[in-house]
């Protein structure tokens, strides 16, 4: 096996995993603390991408656009929390799924109306547009390295916040015992709104980071949301650590599956059959993993203690 190719694919998998983590961390927060199933979390990811892409075109600066787009997606998250999620906290998960399913349709169509169907390409500043030569054969696009860096930084920031701040303490407490937190006289409504906005901003950030690669496009959120759900289910709902490990695992499995599965399949079937089935089977892998994990550990790999 070609070692440098493997290293590059590993980095590609890491990049995908970290993006997944950004989306999944917000999802698992909202899910774990608010007990709210938000299918429209992916729509916020798309919204982040579109707002950032549009701002980049207007301002001519990608980094500035990211800084401005973050609060915008946070506010979008606040609005969703206030008008859709809050009235539904007391209801069962089925109602959450259906209402946020409706919200996906609404946001997708609104984006189509506002920005048109074609999506928006995002120009990068020159220093991010090139490649970085790690060794003679190891060349990786600088922007992908930046995604890895930004993802790791966000993960570290989240870790610090959860373990060292008052908000983080409330989040941890909320994830393991919600009634107790509200009994302690904490303004639970404000905490919920904050968590929702934070989750939206994280998802939005992921969208902004991927937009220069894939462009902002309608429906991009629907691709990632299901995978993000797989991540938080495998990791254990409400667990940041679980989301992080599961996201990296799924990102790596998906990328390495796409890289090596067809070669593997060619050993046992015809070339044509292998070329058609390999991408599909590698897409299937993550669901197989989820089913196996749930069959063996119905609460996921790292369930938060004492629910």
């Amino acid at each position, binding site marked *: 096996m070609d070692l440098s190719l493997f290293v590059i694919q590993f980095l590609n*998998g890491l990049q995908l995993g970290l993006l997944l983590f950004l989306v999944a961390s917000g999802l698992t927060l909202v899910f774990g603390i608010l007990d709210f199933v938000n299918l429209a979390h992916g729509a916020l990811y798309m919204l982040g991408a579109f707002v950032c892409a549009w701002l980049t075109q207007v301002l001519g600066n990608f980094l500035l656009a990211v800084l401005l787009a973050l609060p915008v997606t946070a506010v979008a998250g606040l609005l969703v929390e206030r008008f859709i999620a809050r009235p539904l906290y007391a209801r069962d998960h089925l109602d959450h799924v259906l209402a946020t399913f409706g919200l996906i349709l609404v946001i997708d169509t609104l984006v189509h109306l506002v920005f048109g169907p074609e999506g928006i390409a995002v*120009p990068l500043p020159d220093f991010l547009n090139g490649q970085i030569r790690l060794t003679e054969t190891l060349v990786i696009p600088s922007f992908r390295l930046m995604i890895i860096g930004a993802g790791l930084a966000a993960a570290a920031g989240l870790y610090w916040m959860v373990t060292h701040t008052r908000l983080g303490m409330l989040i941890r407490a909320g994830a393991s015992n919600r009634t107790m937190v509200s009994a302690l006289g904490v303004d639970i409504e404000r905490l919920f709104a904050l968590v929702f906005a934070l989750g939206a901003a994280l998802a939005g950030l992921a969208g902004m980071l991927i937009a220069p690669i894939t*462009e902002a496009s309608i429906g991009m959120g629907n691709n990632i949301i299901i995978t993000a759900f797989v991540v938080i289910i495998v990791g254990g709902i409400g667990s940041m650590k679980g989301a992080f490990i599961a996201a990296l695992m799924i990102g790596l499995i998906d990328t390495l599956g796409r890289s090596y599965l067809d070669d593997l399949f060619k050993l046992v079937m015809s070339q044509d059959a292998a070329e058609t089935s390999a991408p599909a089977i590698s897409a299937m892998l993550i669901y197989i993993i989820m089913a196996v994990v749930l069959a063996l550990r119905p609460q996921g790999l790292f369930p938060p203690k004492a629910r």
Partner: protein
Amino acid sequence: MNLNGFSRLAMVAAMMAAPAQLLAEDVKIGFVTTLTTGAAVIGNDMKNAVDLAMDHLGGMAGETRLEVIYGDDQFAPDAGKQVTDKLVKQDNVDFVAGYIWSHVLLASRKSVLDAGKFLISANAGPSQIAGKLCDPHFFSTSWQNDQTPMAMGEVLNRQGVQSLYIMAPNYAAGKDMAAGVERVFEGEIKGKDLTKWGADAQLDFSAELAKAKASGANGLFVFYPGAAGGAFIKQYHQAGLKDVLPLYSVFTVDGLSLPKLQEADFSGVLGSKTTNQWDPSLDNEANKKFVSDFKAKYGGYPSFYAAQSYDAIMLIASAVEAVGGDMSDPDAVQAALKSADFASVRGDFSFGSNNMPVQDFFLREVVVDADGTWTTKVVETVYEDHVDSYAAECKM
């Protein structure tokens, strides 16, 4: 009161009678394309071209009024078939035209032909319909999927490219495109990746690009139509492959991706080459009028999708005019369509034995035009009067 009710009834009756009279003379064209999802960028371009064709015709084919009813396939074969059923059964159209996607066309084909209507593809050209599933009532104003990549394969041979890596979406047309280039290309195929397609298509090609580079191939052949094209081109350049692994694409760099790439100031795409049967710079009267009026009306160059859609409407109009708007004799309409007596934007136009066009294929290059807009121009003619490879399988 009573009188009021009576007169109202009379009015309603008159209103219902009036369109009924018109309907008897109108010829209706159903036009199926993608109007939602990201792929709507293609659909809108086709719709614009159809509207322009209707403008140029004044809505008339000779003495007969034409009416176009659009249908949205939502980028999915089952939705495409459903909307085709509606056009055929409820709107009772005489022609169903359009179809970007090969799998949508394959799914919808039976609904149109079984009802005795005419099916005109303005883009999709799956091998099956050119060969075994050919039908006298099916015509194409585009190409058979394999042809454009075959022309590219020919270019690769002429340029002496030794080995190739292939990337395409995993659906009917993607497989045909790969088959087309493989049929003609004489060098070695180092590897091939088919990626997930549809409304939730894969748009991050990092793993595949890394594989392509590691394969050591001399060239990379890709087919990524619509929005995916722009995304692919950017990642290709971000990965720094321009000098290591030259790109040879079909239907990827076009009138739809270029404006977006220009907006993002992505000059890496200038100079890249692609094959096609049409180009905005083709020198004939119909094309000049089409391109300049399209630019005037919509503010940008038409894509090849638009050109083919324009031709589809012009072909239908020519046939309707030839039979004097009388749709009662399908054989006469069929013969009129087959004679292809209209001014195509690609110049000479004729149908082969399987009702696919017999046409030239050009090598095109991305250039900056006099106004500073990015577009393509013809470099050379690769194939003259090319007949697709499935015509022999068609028994008709």
